[in-house]
């Protein structure tokens, strides 16, 4: 069992080591990448099976008892996030076998991709806030490398913006960790949750919470610290943009949900309204930003921001249903958004451009692609019976139940505006006649298969979540209940007898 708990860290780590050692041996690297992704997915599914009754699995690293060593803690929420990480890793590993694969792999795509997966999996499994900081950095440095992989002018420019804004975010995180340690004398999540309500200086603790909110918010691209995302994502090559869109911002959302349901839960009355305002502003800014752009990648980038707002409704309302809605929404969103970026790559391949003005006629020239675009696009907008409808339904219903009428109304309106952007892409890229000068970039059948297979599988998953929602909804509710059951988490990590040393609080 202990090996299973750390497997999501060991598998990508082994993949990084092997692919880095086999630098330049592209074929072997690719095989390792796909095998490691399958293994990660399998391990994560096993973890979901082990935690599906709401149990919390704990592995103490180096056998140090909990508040002193680093604990790896997997509850159902972590396990669900790990499954989705494995799925995305697999989809992108296969998709990256498509066009431009050789240039990418020669530049070191495989080791960097798996470093990113390692950082993400670490952030989802750790039970220690300083360790979370370290995993953030692993993820960040890998994402820097991935972003400027092709070394084009626009990647340099986008990369500079991305790098500097993220550096400031992580330094704020580091500062907050230091101050939190000063106030509580511990870094372990469970121990923090136990100690936080008893801290004398609650004002200072809330200030640290706000610092953490800024740091995680910058990672999650919430209003007003979202600017790095639309400045950079559209410059990355398509597999990179897809994995970024799927996972990076969601790690920020995960950290927000974890920390603010566990450590700052006693202060929910203070943070709830802040989250509500941030969530609404994020939804609205993102969707209007998307409305004004004419480049497929930029439209999709702004929609990431808009959708992050929905995921924050859970922590804004703090009811079990709202948090379950957030979890269901995250799962749906990751699948759909990654898929849209993968489709955008295929659009570029079929028409030669990402600019809507220079694309067109795909409904005739690539009918399968049109169908595969419609599934995630309509799901993103929340059309029944696709997955997005259920995600939005749960989130909005929880809003009405908890009396958050304004936030629920904003969520509804933003859903309609999302449909506007998706129809814009549909009209321009698929429906209108192809403008003169449009020409497909030639590609082989194998590249075509590598591009279409992950798109089709992810579209099938979207349909499955939509049509057969019940098990997914039930699982999110179990995960939300176990997130809100702080006592169970604390006793699982710290054990029944909490060690307490006099005078360790600095």
């Amino acid at each position, binding site marked *: 069992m202990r090996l299973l708990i750390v497997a999501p860290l060991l598998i990508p780590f082994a993949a990084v080591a092997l692919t880095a050692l086999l630098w330049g041996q592209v074929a072997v690297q690719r095989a390792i990448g796909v095998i490691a992704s399958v293994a990660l997915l399998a391990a994560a599914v096993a973890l979901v099976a082990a935690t599906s009754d709401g149990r919390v699995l704990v592995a103490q690293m180096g056998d140090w008892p909990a508040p002193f060593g680093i604990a790896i803690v997997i509850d159902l929420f972590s396990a669900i996030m790990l499954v989705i990480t494995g799925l995305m890793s697999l989809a992108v590993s296969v998709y990256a076998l498509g066009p*431009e694969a050789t*240039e990418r792999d020669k530049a070191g795509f495989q080791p960097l991709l798996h470093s990113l997966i390692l950082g993400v999996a670490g952030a989802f499994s750790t039970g220690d806030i*300083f360790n979370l*900081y*370290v995993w953030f*950095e692993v993820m*960040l*440095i890998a994402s*820097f*490398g991935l972003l*400027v992989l*092709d*070394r*084009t*002018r*626009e*990647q*340099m*420019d*986008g*990369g*500079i*913006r991305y*790098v*500097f804004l993220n*550096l*400031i975010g*992580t*330094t704020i995180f*580091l*500062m907050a*960790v*230091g*101050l939190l*340690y*000063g*106030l509580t004398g511990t870094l372990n999540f469970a121990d923090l949750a136990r100690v936080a309500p008893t801290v004398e200086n609650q004002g200072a603790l809330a200030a640290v919470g706000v610092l953490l909110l800024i740091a995680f918010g910058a990672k999650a691209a919430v209003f007003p610290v979202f600017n790095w995302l639309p*400045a*950079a994502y*559209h*410059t990355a*090559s398509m597999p990179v943009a897809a994995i970024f869109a799927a996972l990076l911002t969601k790690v920020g959302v995960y950290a927000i949900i974890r920390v603010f349901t566990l450590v700052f839960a006693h202060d929910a009355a203070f943070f709830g309204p802040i989250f509500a305002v941030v969530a609404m502003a994020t939804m609205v800014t993102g969707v209007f930003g998307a409305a004004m*752009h*004419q*480049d497929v990648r*930029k439209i999709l980038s702004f929609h990431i921001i808009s959708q992050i707002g929905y995921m924050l409704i859970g922590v804004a309302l703090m009811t079990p249903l709202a948090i379950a809605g957030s979890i269901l929404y995250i799962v749906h969103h990751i699948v759909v958004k990654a898929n849209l970026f993968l489709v955008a790559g295929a659009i*570029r391949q079929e028409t*030669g*451009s*990402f*600019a809507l003005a*220079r694309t067109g006629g795909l409904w005739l020239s690539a009918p399968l692609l049109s169908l595969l675009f419609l599934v995630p696009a309509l799901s993103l907008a929340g059309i029944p019976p696709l997955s997005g409808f259920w995600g939005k339904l749960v989130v909005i219903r929880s809003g009405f139940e908890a009396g958050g009428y304004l936030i629920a109304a904003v969520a509804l309106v933003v859903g309609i505006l999302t449909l506007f952007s998706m129809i814009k892409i549909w009209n321009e890229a698929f429906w209108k006649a192809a403008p003169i000068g449009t020409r497909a*970039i030639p590609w082989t059948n194998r590249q075509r298969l590598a591009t279409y297979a992950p798109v089709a599988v992810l579209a099938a998953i979207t349909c499955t979540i939509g049509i057969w929602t019940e098990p997914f909804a039930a699982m999110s509710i179990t995960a939300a209940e176990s997130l809100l059951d702080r006592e169970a988490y604390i006793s699982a990590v710290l054990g029944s007898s909490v060690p307490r*040393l*006099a*005078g*360790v609080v*600095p």
Partner: protein
Amino acid sequence: MEPVLILGIGIVTVAAVYLLLAADLPRMLIGFVLLGTAANLAILVSGRLGAPVPPLVPPGAMALASDAANPLPQALILTAIVIGFGLAAFTLTLVVKSYEEFGTVVADDMDAAETEAKPSLPEQKRLVAEQREAA
């Protein structure tokens, strides 16, 4: 001791913010390094200062003596320094590369990412090759 150090952290943070607001990238990078230093000092201060006794558990005891120095912040800072160094090194490389690419270190003069939809990398290569052939 602590008030002096806290004042110092404040001054370093102010300097870092000032540098981060600069238009050119090397200054911003130095600002980031300074901000990291301020964060590390903040961790040091929050971990109790001033104990000269080394953090060794006396024989027979189960815990540190109460006047021992706190080893944890030092471990955290060491980790943070290494990470910060790596990030600063990468960023410096990126700044040098973009200076070679754009001929400037002023962020406002770099706008390659903000013009809508450039041709893709293979297209760019093809265009360059065509121009060469024509020449």
